[in-house]
């Protein structure tokens, strides 16, 4: 083992990426333009990237390095929400941008990429390290990985890692098949399945809240928690992604990955250490503890929905089937609500209500933990019934925590009223929060997989979601069943009402 750098001071120095080349497949795509390049530029702006850093963009369009640089500058200008373009920083960053044109199906592309990587390593001193980022159609993931392997690029002088965007398969079998093909070239420890939800500061804050404080853990179980609601609502429709969306649907697009990962973060057992393996082991255990439902249970515990046309905020809004690129008879779910159960001692019998949908009244993502009422109502019973104790973790917008409890109203008499104790993440820490992609890209470059999804986690979540998919596929839904701008189908309210619960209106 070589000597370590004795000048490091982790308490004061910012986390820095080691030298490497990032190879982006799909460099002309939306994700690269909107998220990846602005995130990388911001990391450069914050001096988080090493001087030995380079990006090699890959796409079919023929472009020179300079044309690619100009295009990326336009993207960064357009999509960097809170970062000014500094001419000098951009000039230094842009010198490390390169481009290779080619078709992912063409073996010659990987030969050219190999030559470019060698040239860039000499020119930029990237140390032979390479991070391959697949920002392409999911059908091309395995092709790209095998192409890299065929050209001998899966191994090199430094480390080699592969970042894969969701969806990780469309069911359990395809997820396993995809992993199997990726593993022909990359070890599982070098495969980084990205779920940008897990890179959000407030999702990470769930871990800090749960395991950095001693006072909440005793209340974090079936004895005190009545039920949990996880909501990811979007006010927008499919926004031009109709063709993609109708192949996926809300259940597969949101619940199978983002929301089950959030649920695992909420419900997992405490970790022994904040290391990638410990955290991912506990999440995986939790996902494997979730009850895979029988068809009858699926019918009772899940609701599919699709929005229809409506007038929202004084404007006519198209229904899903009227969106461009969508089949007018499409059976795709734009709303999904599921009651999950975790079969372990901590959570047995506690319903986890998870819902997501498009064209709901507002954009909000939150987790609400509702506590059991006081065992005896010695005050105003109505007040206690109508205002339960709630711990709300808001992921977006206005990230923060709220604890709702009852308090005596000032004045004569013992009248109670609910009050909210708020912690606002953005205002308590005025520092800018890094975007999810900044966090996750830096983690991948540094080899920290804590916030990435592992193969067994993906498979465990498909094991829970697939039985629902199977029943929904065979069911003839009467779509559309909710109007745009409302909180989803009435059946979703009935699903909770059967257990004496009601959805929050966040």
């Amino acid at each position, binding site marked *: 083992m*070589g*000597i*370590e*750098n*004795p*000048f*490091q*001071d982790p*308490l*004061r*120095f*910012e986390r*820095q990426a*080691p*030298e490497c080349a990032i190879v982006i497949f799909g460099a002309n795509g939306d994700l690269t333009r909107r998220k990846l390049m602005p995130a990388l530029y911001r990391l450069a702006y914050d001096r988080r990237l*090493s*001087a*030995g850093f380079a990006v090699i963009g890959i796409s079919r369009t023929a472009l020179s390095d300079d044309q690619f640089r100009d295009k990326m500058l336009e993207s960064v200008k357009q999509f960097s929400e809170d970062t000014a373009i500094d001419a*000098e920083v951009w000039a230094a960053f842009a010198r490390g941008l390169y481009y290779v044109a080619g078709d992912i199906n063409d073996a010659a592309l990987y030969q050219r990429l190999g030559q470019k990587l060698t040239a860039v390593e000499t020119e930029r*001193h990237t*140390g032979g390290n390479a991070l391959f980022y697949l920002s392409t159609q999911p059908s091309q993931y395995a092709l790209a990985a095998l192409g890299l392997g065929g050209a001998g690029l899966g191994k090199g002088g430094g480390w080699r890692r592969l970042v894969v965007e969701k969806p990780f398969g469309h069911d359990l079998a395809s997820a396993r098949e995809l992993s199997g093909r990726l593993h022909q070239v990359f070890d599982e420890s070098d495969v980084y399945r990205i779920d940008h939800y897990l890179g959000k500061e407030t999702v990470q804050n769930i871990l800090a809240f749960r395991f950095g404080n001693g006072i909440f853990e005793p209340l974090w179980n079936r004895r005190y928690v009545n039920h949990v609601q996880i909501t990811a609502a979007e006010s927008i429709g499919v926004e031009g992604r109709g063709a993609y969306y109708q192949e996926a649907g809300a259940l597969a697009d949101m619940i199978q990955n983002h929301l089950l990962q959030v649920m695992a973060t909420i419900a997992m057992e405490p970790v022994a250490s904040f290391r990638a393996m410990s955290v991912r082991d506990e999440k995986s255990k939790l996902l494997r503890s979730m009850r895979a439902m029988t068809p009858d249970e699926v019918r009772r515990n899940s609701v599919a929905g699709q929005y229809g046309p409506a007038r929202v905020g004084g404007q006519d809004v198209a229904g899903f089937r009227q969106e461009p690129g969508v089949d007018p008879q499409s059976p795709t779910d734009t709303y999904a609500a599921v009651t999950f159960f975790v079969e372990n001692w901590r959570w047995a019998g506690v319903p986890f209500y998870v819902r997501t949908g498009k064209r709901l009244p507002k954009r909000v993502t939150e987790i609400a933990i509702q506590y059991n009422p006081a065992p005896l109502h010695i005050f105003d019973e109505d007040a206690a019934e109508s205002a339960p104790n709630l711990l709300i973790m808001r992921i977006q917008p*206005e990230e923060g925590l709220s604890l709702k409890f009852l308090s005596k109203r000032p004045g004569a008499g013992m009248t109670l009223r609910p009050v909210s104790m*708020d912690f*606002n993440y*953005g*205002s*308590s*820490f*005025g*520092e800018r929060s890094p975007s999810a992609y900044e966090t996750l890209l830096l983690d991948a470059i540094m080899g920290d997989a804590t916030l990435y999804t592992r193969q067994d986690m993906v498979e465990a979540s498909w094991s829970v979601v697939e039985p629902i998919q199977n029943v929904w596929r065979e069911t003839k839904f009467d779509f559309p069943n909710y109007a745009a701008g409302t909180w989803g189908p009435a059946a979703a309210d009935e699903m909770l009402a059967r257990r004496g619960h009601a959805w929050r209106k966040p």
Partner: protein
Amino acid sequence: MAAAGAEGIPPERVLRELADLWITLGKQGEAESGTGVLRACTLNLVVLAEASDDAAALEETIAALMPEHPARTIMVKLSGAGERALAERVYAQCWMPFGQRRQICCEQIAITASDAALADLESVVLPLAAPDLPVIVWSRSARLFEMPPFGAIARMATKVVVDSAAFADAKRTLRLLAEMARGGILLGDLAWTRLTRWREMLARLFENRNYLAKLARISGVRVTYYGEFATSAWYMGAWVADALRDAGVSAQVVVGTGSGPPSLSVELAGGGFRVELVRQQDRLIITVDNAENCTNLPQPGDCLLMREELGIVRRDAVFERTLASAARLAYATD
């Protein structure tokens, strides 16, 4: 504003004024935006400043610190010689976070104290501190550092931050600071904080495996300074020497003065390998052997320096070791 004069400052009254202030702010916020105000407080910041200090600039610095480190700020203005006098006023510092409707407010208490009243300061400040939160004392007065009441003020603090660049005798300052640290006082020195970004540059240089492999060749370290960088220079020399020692490298460290505009440079050399970092105004020139690179490194203002120090309310082992080494190094050269 309430002037307490010789009778002192009853903390109950100040705290009552603070409570009234929150009620007023809440009503104003409710009337203006219907959302009230949010009180934010993560620490107590006690600022000790001379009356001659630029009050407006200091207010700006504190206002800029609040979004990241919301605090109950107790601003103590040192009025110098004269009657034993203390006076106070209470007010709030509010801001509207971008894209949000609710104002965030932090509270401030301003106290004026004559030199004769400094002995009473501890008994005034402690009851006014928000409970269960750390008390950070930022002493901007070089004069106060040498006065007897400073010890009592430092002992009430969770952490004391000074700026030794403003002190006249660098060696004596280092010795006093090292003694305080040995006595268990948690310290921060902005003269050390100023070095963070360029210490980082030096560390980053040795992330390169080729350069790291040449570390063992280094036999000499020369730090040259001019102007206000005296304590920074001793810190730099001590820090480099300690780091080299950790890597099993023994090097002779020389700290000396240069000339011209205020500057600081450090050179590590030996066995045909040479690394030099030179700070000149807002630029850092990094030379490795014959290859030179110039980078923009603006001199950080008080706000940036304090942001960093307020973020570290615990033992900073690297600084503590460097301070002890710097004090030894400085006196060894006498």
